[in-house]
Each structure stands twice: as C-alpha cells, then as structure tokens.
C-alpha cells in the first residue's frame, strides 16, 4: 500500500528512470538519484528502525551522513550485505534490498519495545550498575545483552568485491563542494595549484544548489542558478580533479588525509561485478581548505523522537532536491530563521504548512511577513511540550514559554500534523578540523565551537567556520583565499550578494514541558537513547568531565558519533553545573567521520597478499617434496618432510635419526648474513659480542653471543673471518634485520670513529647445511679436489672452493653436534647446489630435514635458540654460558649490566635440562614447574622452554628455566598438568654426546 508524495518534478534526480527496490520485504519504486530515504519518504514510509535501548519506533531524521535513526542493513543474507548503512546516504538501484536493524521480529512489532515501558528502570549506567555483580556472571549477561541490542549483522562469507588504495599528492585539497568549496577549488586551480576537490554527495553544490529563495541572490541571480554556472566552468579548468561520492574519513597531522571513494555502491548488481567497489585515497596535501559545512541541530523536548519528526533543513532538501513531501500537514518548530525559509519553500511547492512554532519573541521582518502572507500561523514564544503517535507523529501540543525559558504557562494548544520540522540552529562541522590537531574556541554569541588555532597549513571556510549568511560567507571567503593562496584577487571579488538579515536567536538547550522532567522523554542522542534526564543523573552522581559523562550516558558514542546531539549534551551539562560551555570543551572527535568497511581499509592486502613473505632459492624443491612449511619471521621455512602419510612426529623422528646415523641436509639460507669490512672490524666485533675476536685467525669461525645493553641475550650466531679486515656474521633468522639496525646504531652514534662498513647479504647467498657422519663423503663427491681432512679443514674453519665454476664458501660448523658443512653459493645457484647434494647423497640415504628436526637435534645437544629458550630476561650466566663471557675485555655491549645487583642474584631463573621419570612422557612447552605440590599458594619456579622425544636417546628430553636451577642438579621437581602431575629430574642440559666426540669422528 504505497502512497505517492512526489510533489513536483525535480531537476536533480532522473524521473524518467524508475527503480524498484525492497524495504523490509515490500517492493517500492523510486527514481534514479534517490537515496533510500528519499524514496521511502516518497512512499510515505517514515518508520525505519527501532532505537537501541528502548526499542522506540524511529523515523528518518536527516538527509545526510549525520543520520542517527535510519540505519539499515543493505542486501541482507547475501555475501554483499552491509550493516549500519545510513538510508540518507545510500543511493537506490534496481533490485536493491534493505531491512531495518535492531528489531525482532519486525519493525512494526518489536518485542524489545517492552523496554520502552520499562524505561524508568533503565537509567544511565544501568548496565554498569546491574550486570557487574557477581563479576563472574558478566559472560552470561553479555550473551543476552548483545543479542537484544545488536546493530546489524556482519556478513558471514568472503567479501566478493575488490577494493583499492591510491596515494595522492596535491598542492591544495578542498574538502566539501558547497558554494565555498567550489569557489575555493576554482581559485586555487586557476592560480596553478594542483587541486583536488572532494564531496561525499553524488552532486556538487552543497545546499546552495537547490536554494531557490527569491531573497538570496548573487549578481541578481537566484543563488542556485549562479552556482550552476560556476560548476559548469569547473570542467574547463586544468589542475583540478573532482571526486564525488568521496567522503574524508580522517584528517591526520601534516595534512595527511584518508578518504573513501565510493565507485559502485549506487550501481545495479550486474554492473558491480569485477569493478573496484571503493578506493581509499591516501592524500598528502600541501594545503587544506576545509569547507565541510554545518549540521542542523534538532531541539530537546518531550518525545522529540517520533517517526515524522525531522530536521527542518532535511524536509527542505527532500522537497527542493528530491521533489518529495515529508508529510501532508507539516509544522515547523524553531529558534532561528532557517525554518521560515523551509516553510516558504514547501509552501511554494504546494505542501501544506500548518504553523511555525518559534521560541523567540515576535519580530517584524521581511521573512516573517512572507510566512504570514502565505497563510501560515506563527506561534511566538511557544514551545512543543509533547507529541503523540507511536509509529507516526499525529499531534503536537504547544504551550507558551516563560520569559526565562525554564517553564511553560497558559493553555495547551493541540495541533494535528503528520510531520514536524525542527530547527535548533546550526553547528559547524568541525570534526575533521579537530582530528588534525587544531583547536576550537567557543563563540559565546553564536553558541558554537569554531576553528581557532590551526595545527597545519589549512583554513576553514564557509559555514564550518561559523559564517552562516551568504554575504558574510562570500566576503570572508574572498579575504581568506587571497591570504591563503598568496593571490591578489579572486574571480568573485566583485559580485553583489543579497540575503535576508537574521532576527534574534534564542538558545534553550533543554526545553521545558508541563510535565516534570522525570515524566518526559527528551532525547539528546537518538541512536544511543540518551535523554536529558540521563545527563542530569550523571551530574547528580558526581560526573563532571564531559568525557566521563559521555561514557557513562553513552551520549555521542554511536555510529553517528553524536553529530546531532553533542552540543545539547554540552549545553545541558553547562546549564546544570553552572559553568560556561567554552570552559567545558568538547569531547574528542575521532576518525573515521563516517564508518569505513574493512575491505576499504585493507585494500588489495587480502588472501595471499595479506602479509609479505620470503622464500629461499630452494623453495620449489621443498614444495615438490610436499614439505610442510613454518613461518619464521617473514620466511616460509620447510618444517618437516612427511613421507607416505607420516604424522609430524613420525617424520621428525625419522629425519632426526637419519641425520645422526648417516646424513641429513637442511636449507639454512634464511639465516641472517651481515658482511663486515673495515680496518676496525675486529675491534667492532670485540665491542658487540661477549667473547674476544682479535685473535681469531683468518679462515676460522667462532660462535658469538650478543647482548642488549641491559645484559640480556639478544642474538647469537657464527662469524667467520674471511680476511684481515673482512668478516661474515650470521644471525638468527628472525633477528637479522634488528641486529643490522642495532649494529648500525652503535656505529653511527656511539662509535663513529670506527672504520667499519656493514652490508646485509642474507638474500645474496643460499645455504645448504650437510650434516651427519657421512657428510664428509658426500662433500668429497661434490668437490673431489678439496682436502677435507681434520688437519686441513678442522671444525670451526672456513674454505673457499669451486663446484665447477661456481664459487662456494664452506664453513665446517655444527648446530646438531654432528660433523657439518654449511655450503654457501650465490643465491641463484641455490637450487642447483641443493639438488647436487641430494644426488651425491643418495647412496648414503641423505635425508632432507626441516626446522622441527633442527630444533630437536640442537636440543639433544643443549644448544639454545634465542627467542625460545630465552625471552629477553636471560643473561649468558643464567644460560650457564659463562664460558663465552670474556673476563679480560674492558667493555662490550651489556657487560656492565652483568654486574648489577639484580643480574648477579643467585636465585634468577637458570637454564637446566629436565628428564621425565617416565621416559615416554613428553612435557608441554610452557608448562609450569613447582617443587612442592601441596604448598599454598603454589610457588612457580619456572617453565619448560623446549621439549621433544629424542629418537637418538629413546627418551623424552626438555630444556627449562628454573629459579636457582644451577644448583638443583639431580633434584626432583613436579609439573602439574590438568589431569596429572609429571615427575621430573633436573639434569645437565647437554643430553647427547657430552664430550663432542662426534664432531671429529
């Protein structure tokens, strides 16, 4: 049963193209260019949702992004569904579906509506006060609260759309394409500034574009006609890029702004496919001109939230721009002149305006006379005291205001109507301005916050800086642009502007009713159902800071961020507490100005592009062998190589045995490699490692431990002396970049006198690590003329050799306790090297092993892994690695900290081995260790850091950090688990080949 409230053809929407769409299951028709809100209003649908807390019926309130009520779910139950969309912003297209949110089972019959009758029991802070006790019950309460509240449903399947990011650099960015923004952009571009003009609407021109008021004229033309000509001229201007349907979400410091460009949301489904839906513009502007306009305020009176109660300016826009009447009998309620302009504009289009209720004293102006001539009754010094109509406004009661505005007198007059336009004055949209770090000042005369101290190269122009009359807007704009753009004149310098003079203003933040405040419902924040009563309650309960009142009452915390109600909240607090509004300040306006979808934020960084990763040159081989991979830092490392459906445990046991019994091969390309050169290279290593480096011979390798200045282990690795002034340092895989950064830091800032140069060569070399008793035989097959005898090529030494014409650097070093050779070649030969090793090792059952086996083998030897057995609180002494800390060196990074009273405590956590009494039981890494089971509270001594079942020892082994563990050798400890307690014995952390015989066997 749809009705047609189209009044007059509009030039802004395409009335030749009819569009059908569904709202809450019913099919309606609108025109191309309609928003969902304008199309629904044209069908006389006002009721679009229920309020958040009391589930009161709510209607469309505004015509823009400040909408608090008409929040809908678009295309519900599809993979393109989107919650929390403002019906006042979204454009309709053929086949669009939308539904109300926050109501069940339907918007017309909502069970939660019972909360409205329970509302005396639901004051501010109700949830805080009620559900906090007992604390353990919160999880249960939360379940029900979330279900009955809920603002829309997020999609449950993958987003099928494409999103994009774009970086833009411009000389001048203009935000907002109303009359001020258009003139600013035009003059900037004409003066050779590369200019970008953005507007969130689909049409340029702001509110002036549909302004047909006979008394607002520029150069004797009606202002909308004059502006259309200006817009027409923009097309021919070079240096100017214009983007509509683009809203600025955030304005950061240094003129860095984020904007969302909406490309396909207004298109039919078939036209959306394979197109970029939204683009996030990352804009760095040399100068910014904010022309964000102003938002009209509602007024706070009893039952001011019924469907049919709207902003006066919104009613005007629906009529002038969309050709839609918001009702058949309309009343305006105002404290300023703008409602008169709306009333006249509607009257011109034949929409019945019953009356204007004005809280001000009578005055005789041209505007007033025209309204009376139109046959509209004006009630001076009256206020609305109540409204009625549950799902649609049907009546308004008004009474005369007392002189001080705090009470009402006389008889109650009742006027029937179906729409009430409220005009509470204009609030400059300073959200973006404050986001940039700029500071506001309160204008006591106009009762608004206006831009005051700019934090970057920017200006605010037009109504967002508090200029509301056309002549003052254009005059101030002219002066500001000349100064800001360093130009002598603008192209609108000599225009003549004519507009009405405004009569007085009267601001009453909370309007009185004939009922006591406690019996009324004057809403301040529509979306969060916060009333003036809630704010007063918060003040009574001792809240004073505006930020605290906001959080306690939830005023301004919805998806609309309180764009409509924040000023009223401040005004009521100021009046009640007896302070000045300017002293209260505002709450913080945080980005985004309007909500962003996650898709827009992440752009192309989805799926395999979600995170960057690095692969070794041998990666393809590992993939072919069906290796499982593990993430180590940014690297994808082969984790283990399962054969014939092996589990991870089975594969690792097999690989570990093979590496000790015959031979194994590990891809060690990911280890960080830093090339160190310069005449002070040895001295540099002396300063960064705990041990001594000066006497290391050329061609020899040495293990080093690097500390932080606080004495804690930071990284480790083997460094090889390639020449007199040339070293190659290896670092842990995950620590490479940080180690290089730290070394550069010391070189550049603390020791600039050292002649040392650092270069990362991690990516330049690929490394295959051959290990096991047969590794020497395999290497011999590959490089027959290299003397591999222990005399010529002993453990911890280096040789350069050639495989064919390929140079390789070979280090005989070991992280497994077996004889091992790390062969480094130029990265591009990595896979060839690897395949050659596999081929040569075939007769020795060479077994590729991954990081898990590497960890197991090193744990058998008690070698630490920085970051697994250490956590930034372990000194080398704690790790029982005193042997690597030079006593002779005067200084090295972290040395002094090893002698602090805290690092010298005997009862620090120290690294030990643990053996389970039952050798089959494998401990869990991270498990807590205690010495007494029945002590309360339980004293936790430490935790397990590494734990494996060792196939070579045929028993479970573990490393752990235990308080005072150094002196606990052989002591029995306990590991309480959920279902049992495991008995363990403290042991030497070296479990396998304690005398290192295998290295030279």
């Amino acid at each position, binding site marked *: 049963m749809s009705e047609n409230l189209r009044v007059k053809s509009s030039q802004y929407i395409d009335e030749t193209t009819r569009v059908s769409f569904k709202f809450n299951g019913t099919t309606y028709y609108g025109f191309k260019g309609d928003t969902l809100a304008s199309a629904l209003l044209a069908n006389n649908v006002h009721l679009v949702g229920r309020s958040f807390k009391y589930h009161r019926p709510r209607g469309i309130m505004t015509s823009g992004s400040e909408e608090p009520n008409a929040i809908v779910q678009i295309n519900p139950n599809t993979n393109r569904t989107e919650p929390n969309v403002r019906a006042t912003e979204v454009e309709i297209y053929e086949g669009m579906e939308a539904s109300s949110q926050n109501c069940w089972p339907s918007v017309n019959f909502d069970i939660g509506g019972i909360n409205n009758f329970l509302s005396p029991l639901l004051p501010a802070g109700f949830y805080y006060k009620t559900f906090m006790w007992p604390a353990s019950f919160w999880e249960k309460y939360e379940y029900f609260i979330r279900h009955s509240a809920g603002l829309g449903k997020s999609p449950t399947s993958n987003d099928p759309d494409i999103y994009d990011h774009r970086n833009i650099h411009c000389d001048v960015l203009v935000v907002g394409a109303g009359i001020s923004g258009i003139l600013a952009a035009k003059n900037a571009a004409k003066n050779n500034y590369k200019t970008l003009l953005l507007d969130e609407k689909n049409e340029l021109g702001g509110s002036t574009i549909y302004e047909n008021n006979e008394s607002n004229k520029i150069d004797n033309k009606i202002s909308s006609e004059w502006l259309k000509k200006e817009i027409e001229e923009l097309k021919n201007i070079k240096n100017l890029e214009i983007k509509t349907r683009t809203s600025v979400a955030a304005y*950061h*410091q*240094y003129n*860095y702004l984020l904007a969302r460009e909406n490309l396909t949301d207004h298109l039919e489904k078939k036209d959306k496919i394979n197109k970029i839906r939204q683009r996030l513009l990352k804009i*760095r502007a040399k100068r910014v001109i904010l022309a964000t306009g102003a938002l009209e305020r509602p007024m706070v009176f009893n039952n001011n939230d019924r469907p049919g109660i709207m902003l006066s300016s919104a009613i005007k826009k629906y009529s002038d721009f969309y050709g839609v009447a918001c009702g058949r009998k309309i009343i305006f309620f105002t404290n300023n002149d703008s409602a008169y302009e709306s009333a006249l504009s509607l009257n011109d289009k034949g929409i019945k305006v019953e009356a204007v209720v004005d809280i001000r004293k009578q005055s005789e102006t041209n505007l007033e006379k025209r309204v009376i001539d139109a046959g509209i009754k004006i009630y001076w010094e009256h206020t609305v005291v109540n409204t009625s109509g549950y799902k649609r406004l049907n009546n308004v009661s008004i009474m005369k205001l007392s002189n001080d505005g705090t009470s009402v007198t006389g008889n109650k007059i009742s006027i029937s109507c179906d729409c009430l336009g409220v005009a509470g004055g204009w609030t400059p949209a300073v959200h973006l301005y404050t986001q940039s*770090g700029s500071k506001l000042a309160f204008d006591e005369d106009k009762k608004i916050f206006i831009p005051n101290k700019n*934090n970057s190269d920017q200006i605010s122009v037009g109504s967002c800086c508090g200029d509301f009359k056309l002549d003052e807007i254009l005059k101030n704009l002219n002066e500001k642009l000349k100064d800001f753009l360093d130009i002598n004149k603008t192209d609108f310098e000599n225009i003549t502007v004519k507009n009405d003079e405004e009569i007085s203003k009267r601001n009453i933040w909370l309007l009185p009713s004939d009922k006591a405040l406690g019996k009324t419902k004057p809403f301040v924040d529509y979306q969060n159902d916060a009333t003036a009563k809630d704010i007063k309650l918060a003040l009574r309960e001792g809240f004073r800071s505006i930020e605290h009142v906001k959080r306690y009452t939830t005023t301004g915390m919805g998806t609309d961020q309180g764009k409509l109600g924040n000023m009223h909240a401040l005004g009521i607090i100021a009046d009640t507490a007896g302070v000045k509004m300017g002293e209260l300040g505002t709450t913080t306006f945080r980005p985004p100005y309007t909500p962003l979808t996650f898709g827009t934020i992440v752009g192309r960084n989805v799926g395999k592009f979600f995170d960057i990763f690095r692969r070794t040159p041998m990666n393809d081989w590992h993939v072919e062998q069906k290796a499982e991979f593990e993430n180590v830092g940014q690297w994808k490392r082969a984790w283990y190589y399962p054969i014939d459906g092996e589990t991870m445990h089975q594969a690792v046991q097999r690989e570990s045995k093979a590496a000790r019994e015959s031979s194994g091969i590990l891809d060690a390309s990911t280890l960080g490699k830093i090339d160190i050169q310069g005449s002070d290279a040895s001295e540099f290593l002396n300063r960064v490692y705990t041990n001594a480096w000066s006497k290391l011979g050329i061609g020899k390798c040495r293990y080093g431990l690097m500390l932080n*200045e*606080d004495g804690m282990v930071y990284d480790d690795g083997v460094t090889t002396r390639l020449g007199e002034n040339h070293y190659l340092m290896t670092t842990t895989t995950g620590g490479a970049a940080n180690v290089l*950064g730290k070394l*550069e*830091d010391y070189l*550049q*800032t*603390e020791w*600039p006198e050292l002649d040392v140069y650092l270069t990362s060569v991690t990516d330049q070399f690929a490394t295959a690590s051959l290990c096991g008793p047969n590794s020497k035989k395999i290497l011999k097959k590959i490089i027959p003329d290299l003397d591999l005898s222990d005399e010529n090529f002993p453990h911890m030494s280096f040789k350069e050799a050639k495989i064919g014409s390929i140079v390789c650097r070979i280090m005989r070093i070991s992280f497994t306790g077996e004889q091992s050779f790390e062969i480094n070649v130029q990265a591009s030969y990595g896979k060839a090297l690897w395949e050659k090793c596999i081929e040569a090792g075939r007769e020795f059952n060479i077994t590729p092993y991954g990081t898990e086996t590497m960890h197991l083998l090193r744990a058998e030897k008690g070698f630490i892994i920085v970051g697994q057995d250490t956590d930034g609180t372990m000194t080398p002494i704690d790790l029982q690695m005193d042997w690597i800390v030079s006593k002779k060196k*005067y*200084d090295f990074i972290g*040395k*002094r*900290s090893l*002698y*602090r*009273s805290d690092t010298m405590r005997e009862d620090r956590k120290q690294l030990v081995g643990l053996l389970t009494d039952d050798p089959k039981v494998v401990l869990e890494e991270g498990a807590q260790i205690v010495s007494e089971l029945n002590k309360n509270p339980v004293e936790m001594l430490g935790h397990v850091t590494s734990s494996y079942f060792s196939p070579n020892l045929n028993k479970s082994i573990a490393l752990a950090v235990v308080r005072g563990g150094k002196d606990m050798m052989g002591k029995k400890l306990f590991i309480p688990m959920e279902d049992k307690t495991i008995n363990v014995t403290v042991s030497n952390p070296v479990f396998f080949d304690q005398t290192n015989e295998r290295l030279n066997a």
Partner: protein
Amino acid sequence: MFVINCPYCGERDQQEFKAGGEAHIERPKQPTELSDDEWAEYLFMRKNIKGIQYERWNHAHGCRKWFNMIRDTSNDEIKAIYKMGEKPPSI
C-alpha cells in the same frame, strides 16, 4: 603521519622512519667505573615530556642513517632536524 626531512634524502613519509628514543644520551666511556645507580641512570631513565623533546630517528627504509629531531610532543611539530654529532640548533 609526519613528513620528515631526512638530512641525507629530503622529505619522506614517516612510515620510512623508525623512532629511536631520547637523543643526546651518550653511552658512558668507562661503564665499569660507574656505580649501579649511575649505570641505571644511563640504561633506564628517559624523559617523556609534554613539550619540546630531543629525539633520535632512523631512516630505516631509506638511507639507514640516524639523525636527531627536536619535536614538540604536544602538537607533533618538528622544530628542527640535525645530523648525529651536531650540536642542537637553538629553537
């Protein structure tokens, strides 16, 4: 997101840089001569003031050079940038 004028590369976006804490805290030349308290003063104590702060920054994703910055932490205005080893300019 700041625009930082690297003294070696020129103006770059902040995402190329890494902040390195308070500037002009010299590592003691003879740490072993210091008492625990003196060493702790060097090791742990850093200013975190609202207002003019002297900081170290590193052009980590650029030339990798460290330099100094004077920044007003109350509004993030960069007052001056100067190389390591240089005296802070008067502001």
